[in-house]
């Protein structure tokens, strides 16, 4: 390797500059902004100290948003980690044939659609009069389940209907990550277990899961991070409604900035999202740098 004084800096400078100006600078400014009150199209700024943060603690919209993020989190962990792991084991170790391969490909496909496209599909599926779900209920005679406003339109079910969308879309994506991790396990382990007469279930428990635990941790962390960054699905399906029953923090932060014109308040929520996602990203970087994965 060459010892050099200035040369490498020229190679790194453009990337460094963009990252510094467009990633780091805004994060620092966002922190400072969160102590101020100001509007989108005016340069006046008033220092308000911790007021934005104190308001957050008593704002029922924000509290709803946080609890909705937690609902998302629980469902995302169940499906995108739990079910994804189950499916990965089933398609790799139990159905080791062309059918397993086909399933793998098909389950992965939804993650390639944009959220906008899936959201239009989702709205159409849950549309009260022509939608798939209500039509299905009518067809099998479960008329009591047919909801006049649609599952997305009534407060009691809207949040779960929104939260179901990322499960349909991304469970297969996380399954694929785990499939690749499973494929790296040497075959001899399973052959030895087979000779000992271990059942597929025991093999999954004693070999597969311990061997993929690093990737499993990565998927947990990725899920947590993406949960607290949730925005597009809510924006496109319900805009946070009906009422504010499906608000999530990302959505409320966006609304505060561009609908209610409370930029400082929005920044404070940005800081909340930053702290949560940053903490988990650090874990992710630690895990993936220590492991053989990368």
């Amino acid at each position, binding site marked *: *390797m*060459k010892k*050099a*004084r200035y040369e*490498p800096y020229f*190679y*790194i400078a*453009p*990337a*460094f500059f963009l*990252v510094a*100006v467009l*990633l780091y*600078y*805004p*994060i620092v*400014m*966002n922190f400072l902004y969160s102590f101020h009150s100001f509007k989108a*199209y005016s340069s006046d700024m008033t220092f308000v100290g911790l007021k934005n943060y104190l308001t957050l603690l008593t704002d029922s919209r924000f509290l709803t948003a946080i609890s909705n993020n937690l609902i998302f989190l629980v469902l995302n962990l169940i499906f995108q980690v739990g079910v994804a792991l189950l499916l990965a084991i*089933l398609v790799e170790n139990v159905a080791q044939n062309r*059918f*397993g391969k086909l*399933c793998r490909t098909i389950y*992965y*496909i*939804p993650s*390639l*659609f*944009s*959220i*906008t496209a899936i959201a*239009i*599909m989702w709205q159409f*599926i849950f*549309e009260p009069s*022509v939608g*798939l779900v209500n*039509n299905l209920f009518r067809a099998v005679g479960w008329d009591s389940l047919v909801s006049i406003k649609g599952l997305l339109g009534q407060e009691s079910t809207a949040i779960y209907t929104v939260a179901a969308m990322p499960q349909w879309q991304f469970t*297969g994506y996380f399954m*694929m*990550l785990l499939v690749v991790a499973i494929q790296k396990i040497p075959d001899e382990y399973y052959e030895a277990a087979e000779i000992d007469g271990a059942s597929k279930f025991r093999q999954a428990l004693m070999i597969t899961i311990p061997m993929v635990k690093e990737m499993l941790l*990565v998927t947990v962390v*990725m899920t947590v991070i993406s949960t607290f960054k949730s*925005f597009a699905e809510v924006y496109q399906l319900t805009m946070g409604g009906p009422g504010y029953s499906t608000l999530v923090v*990302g959505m409320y*932060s*966006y609304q505060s*900035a*561009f609908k209610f014109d409370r*930029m400082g308040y929005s*920044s404070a929520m*940005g*800081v909340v*999202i*930053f702290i949560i*996602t*940053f903490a988990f990203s*650090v874990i992710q*970087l630690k895990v993936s740098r220590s492991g053989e994965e*990368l």
Partner: protein
Amino acid sequence: MHKKKICWRRLPIQLFLLLLNVIVLYPIFWILINSFKSTSEFLQNSFNLPSVLHFENYLKAWSSGLNRYFLNSVFISVVSIFFTTLLSSLAAYGLTRFRFKFRGALFTFILCGLSLSIESSFVPLFKLFQSIHLYNTQFGVILLYIAFRIPLTVFLMRSYFISFPKDIEEAARMDGCSSFAIYWRMILPIGKPILASSALMNLIFTWNEFLTALIFLEDQDLMTIPVGLNALKGEMLQEWNIQLAAVVIASIPLIIMFLCMQKQFVKGLTAGSVKG
């Protein structure tokens, strides 16, 4: 005998996997058939196959704005992927093939950018772009896409470049090659696989990205597919068939690419382990 017994025991699992295939594929199929129906036809029955294929739904979706959004998406994706790849490979080259004082610190600085997201910094970026007149320009969005993809791309390329043996460049240097010539004629050609899989990952990202485009592109003429499709939805509230046709057009490029080059997708996916 033995084999047959196992097959029977696995039947419930096979059925379960099959059911999941239906859950994934049926909605997509349902979208597809309804995108070809006339409005009155799908209002009557959305389960039947279309009696006549109404291709004009697709023409209408395309000409009512999607053509514009499609071109914008292609333009923004191509430009931002090109520069992300160029700048990241330069940085990864600098970080792996030289020894210098701040190497570790610079790498950590760029890598930690991975944990910073647009969701927690859009207010200052909005203010910044307003003041330097990048708000509501495609150039501004391209800059953001490049900057936000650099950390991951540098990370991937670095771990690939670092494994190249040193002696090849030593020989080249003896022959009087400049360090840039080594980057251009040796590192880039050998690094092609990682350039390709990171470009593919960045394509999936830029093609589907929503929040940045929503905030920073106000004019409909400038919008990318995800934001444009959302705008289209507002304009054609009752025309589900047109909306669905638009969904199909918007989704086709990535699906076809995936079906043609599955291996590369999976490679990029695991190398990155970081979703959008």
